[in-house]
């Protein structure tokens, strides 16, 4: 009897404290917001009315953060100043994504921006009504997010971060004349990487060159894998692989010491230790997604908007610092592409 009563007291104390916690939260404002009345001509909602966009991001990652920044800038540049962003990050835990998706559905946000495949899948499973813009997803059809790239069909559309693999392999041949063997490094458990590596091997073989590869499953294995790779090749190619991207500093350390030029899938990776890339700028990709979001805000049906690919993928970026460290002389025609990482 006494035990039972104690139990109830204990439970009610817990409930009370949780309720208090929730209560405190009500006053808190969403993480990022840019309030103020609409200033531009493009804003569809009236003065003082705000448009809420829930942002669901899989994990902290430079490329994903840039997608978000580009998206926000696109809306700002077009006069959408009265948009409130509810930025939520799953911190790498897929189960958290489910709860974040519930938050957006119960708050009835006006639109969701999903950054990365898992995030897009988590929110797509929860709502068929709220328009969803996704980015940093490589293949929408493989991820089961759309009927087809041309006609998504549901409430979701977005931009793909599929990078121009063949063009990047060509870049290696252009930058390193006389290259014979190209080393490939990636995480074999990332679907997107496996797909890119398949394309890379085809491109390499088509040029009559040879390839060798190493795979890792988490960033702590990068050092060892790269050490073994650089002894077997003249140049390294790394696709847009999340694990390799996180380990770029380590990777750069090894390739620089071995004086091996490294071409990466994304410019964020180049700035962290690679030599060059031709490819996707995630900020621009986010910006492009933002422009698609504006179309949806103006009444377009996401189900009829084809998936877009990065528009400006011919931009070459060369890391000047790394070039100097490995004693690489940048060819004349690429002189304008050299950038130095901000330290």
């Amino acid at each position, binding site marked *: 009897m006494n035990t039972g009563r104690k139990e109830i007291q*204990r439970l009610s104390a817990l409930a009370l404290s949780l309720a208090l*916690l929730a209560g405190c939260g009500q006053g808190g404002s969403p993480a990022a917001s840019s309030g103020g009345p609409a200033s531009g001509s493009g804003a569809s909602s009236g003065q003082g009315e705000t448009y809420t966009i829930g942002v669901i991001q899989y994990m902290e990652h430079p490329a994903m953060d840039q997608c978000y920044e580009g998206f926000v800038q696109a809306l700002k540049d077009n006069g959408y100043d009265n948009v409130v962003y509810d930025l939520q990050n799953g911190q790498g835990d897929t189960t958290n994504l*489910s*709860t974040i998706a519930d938050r957006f559905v119960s708050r009835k946000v006006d639109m969701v921006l999903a950054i990365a495949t898992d995030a897009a899948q*988590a929110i797509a*499973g929860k709502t068929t009504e709220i328009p969803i813009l996704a980015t940093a997803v490589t293949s929408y059809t493989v991820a089961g997010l759309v009927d087809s790239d041309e006609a998504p069909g549901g409430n979701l559309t977005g931009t793909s971060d599929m990078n121009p693999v063949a063009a990047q392999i060509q870049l290696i041949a252009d930058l390193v004349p006389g290259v014979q063997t190209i080393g490939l490094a990636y995480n074999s458990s990332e679907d997107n990487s496996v797909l890119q590596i398949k394309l890379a091997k085809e491109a390499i073989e088509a040029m009559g060159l040879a390839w060798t590869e190493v795979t890792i499953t988490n960033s702590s294995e990068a050092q060892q894998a790269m050490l073994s790779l650089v002894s077997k090749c003249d140049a390294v190619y790394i696709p847009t692989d999340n694990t390799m991207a996180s380990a770029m500093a380590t990777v750069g350390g090894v390739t620089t010491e071995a004086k091996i030029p490294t071409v990466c899938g994304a410019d964020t990776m180049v700035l962290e230790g690679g030599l060059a890339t031709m490819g996707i700028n995630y900020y621009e990709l986010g910006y492009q997604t933002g422009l698609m979001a504006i179309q949806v805000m103006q009444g377009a049906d996401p189900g009829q908007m084809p998936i877009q690919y990065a528009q400006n993928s011919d931009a070459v970026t060369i890391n000047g610092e790394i070039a100097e460290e490995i004693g690489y002389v940048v060819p004349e025609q690429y002189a304008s592409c050299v950038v130095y990482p901000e330290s």
Partner: protein
Amino acid sequence: MENIILGAMALGLLWSVTTLGIYITYRVLDVADLTLEGAIVLGASVAAVILQQGGSPLLATAAAMGAGALAGLVTALLHVALKIPALLAGILSMIALYSINIRVMLGSSNLSLLRVRTILSPLMDAGCSKNQAALVAGGACTVTVVVGLYWFLHTELGCALRATGRSPQMARAQGINTDRSKVLGFVLGNALVGLSGGLIAQYQGFADVQMGSGSIVIALASLIIGEVIFSRGRSMWLGLTAMALGAVTYRMIIALVLEAGMPATDLKLFTAITVAAALYLPTAKEGLCQALMEEKKEEKRYAGHQSSVKALGRRHSG
């Protein structure tokens, strides 16, 4: 607000099956079994691949459970037959399962279940929302598992399992084959983990090879939250139910931290702080009760003193 609470409860119930699985290995059998991180993904991958090939959801869910059991069997054999310490045996299975899971998913690291019928579909056809359906399915599953485990742990076999965990020497002295009990414990625990993984994948709409990372921590947190807040070594009914409540509480805490609008990058920090606060609560309450009781005693003593003084006074005057 209701939806996020409902979602958290549904997730909690689906995770509670994992928590009950780790209860079998960690509490009943008294070994730390890290197979869980791989087994939960194995369950998810097996279910996902069967569903994608057009298999029935019930078959997929049962197969997820079977696959989990198999993973447990491998760990158990590594431990019992090869004499590898249990902790390492679990780690080895976990590492191996990473590659196996990718193979199970036919070479892919992520399988989508957004476009196939799952075990939740019949309930959703009947007009439930996805979260309601998951709540019903998760609730039914949890109740079945709790009742089933209660029954099993009181059978002769179950008692042998408990005895093996308590004191292997004593159990052997009673004629129990402790190796067999250990195998049974690993298989049973991981079968539940596999089942849970299969259900979680069907609920969240995809299986991902990364979805297991950190799951052992979550399961242990749920287990301890359950024990500290809801039961403290009392009856087995309470102990088993506490596992489910612990898992739900953990998910609730995450939902509330999210609702509170903390900066996105601080989610895990505030989750940890809230869990710590929740765990301190019972201790704090006991401390408070004790302080109050002492105060009362003090008052009584003081009152007693007063009356005796009065009595003395009366005697003197009388």
